[in-house]
């Protein structure tokens, strides 16, 4: 191979800065940023605005680092699934080793910087979150059990707890409840996606619930988890982070979410296939709004509290 051919090959498939940034899963990072910010703002006490900005930034970087480690380890799966074929590694833009190096370097960087910016309880929680997502979920649970998304969902649920710990230096019932809200939300959210993503996971050999136990069982599980989620979400209204705004939001959203879950439960594959999984897709879209508005309501309660409007 001549120098010229190397250069041509490099120029056609060379990674841009955006490709490296895509390793950090920016869309997941936006959820991390939002929930961490709510945890931070809802916590009793305060941080200097610049410290708060840095805390959220380092939590986001830590979340991104775990995303890069996930892309490094799962590049074989990503190559087989339509949804993930465009990611930087399967697209041939970034080398696996580069993703590993970026993931490890940013993990260490984010944990140390969060510790220095706030405290080492928050940093420890961030380190555990990265470990949980990269090792427990990605390397172990994902390829081993259909409960992968149930247990693995914990990784995405930690950011509000980290935000809370950044301010208080500890863990409280309210921060655990915010964790539980996201934790219980993840399975119905993801299983709804699985129902209309058809054979993607099967092709990749990932033992998702609908692959191992069938779509009927998945529909049943969506309903059960949505009922449990509703109990937790509405119950949170009567804790320190709740209030009338949160209660109203939770009542409306959980009624809609339960109606969606019941609708999915009552349908079978033939009906769903006939209308192109319309209800499943609507439920998935609602699930995104569901989490955003619940945390938005917690934020509203926290921001209005100094004016005597938020909380009970």
């Amino acid at each position: 191979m001549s120098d010229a051919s190397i250069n041509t090959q490099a120029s056609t498939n060379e990674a841009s800065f955006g490709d490296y940034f895509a390793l950090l899963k920016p869309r997941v990072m936006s959820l991390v940023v939002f929930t961490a910010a709510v945890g931070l703002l809802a916590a009793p006490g305060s941080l200097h605005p610049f410290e708060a900005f840095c805390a959220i930034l380092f939590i986001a970087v830590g979340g991104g680092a775990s995303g890069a480690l996930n892309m490094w380890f799962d590049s074989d799966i990503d190559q087989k699934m339509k949804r993930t074929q465009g990611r930087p590694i399967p697209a041939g833009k970034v080398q696996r080793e580069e993703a590993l190096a970026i993931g490890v370097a940013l993990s260490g960087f984010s944990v140390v910087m969060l510790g220095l910016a706030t405290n080492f309880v928050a940093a420890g929680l961030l380190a555990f979150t990265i470990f949980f997502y990269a090792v427990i979920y990605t390397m172990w649970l994902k390829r081993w059990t259909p409960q992968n998304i149930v247990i693995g969902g914990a990784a995405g649920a930690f950011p509000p707890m980290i935000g809370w710990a950044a301010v208080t230096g500890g863990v409280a019932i309210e921060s655990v409840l915010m964790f539980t809200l996201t934790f219980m939300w993840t399975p119905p959210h993801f299983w709804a996606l699985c129902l209309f993503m058809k054979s993607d996971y099967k092709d990749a050999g990932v033992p998702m619930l609908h692959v191992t136990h069938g779509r009927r069982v998945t529909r049943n599980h969506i309903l059960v988890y949505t009922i449990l989620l509703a109990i937790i979400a509405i119950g949170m209204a009567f804790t320190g982070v709740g209030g009338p705004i949160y209660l109203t939001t939770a009542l409306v959203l959980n009624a809609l979410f339960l109606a969606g879950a019941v609708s999915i439960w009552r349908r079978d594959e033939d009906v769903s296939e006939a209308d192109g999984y319309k209800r499943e897709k609507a439920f998935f879209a609602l699930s995104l709004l569901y989490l955003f508005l619940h945390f938005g309501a917690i934020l509203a309660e926290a921001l209005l509290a100094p004016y005597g409007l938020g909380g009970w």
Partner: protein
Amino acid sequence: MSFKEPHELHKRRFGRNLGVALVLTSFIFIVFGLTYVKITRGDYEPANASVER
């Protein structure tokens, strides 16, 4: 190689290099800002500052 005529590689990787430069510059400002906030708030008083003379 002359500095006046950048190699094709430098042109091709300009975006990537600019991104890295911006990230590193931002990091300098973040460390500076954090240091300023913590010092001005008195987080890092000398160990003997509270000893009454």
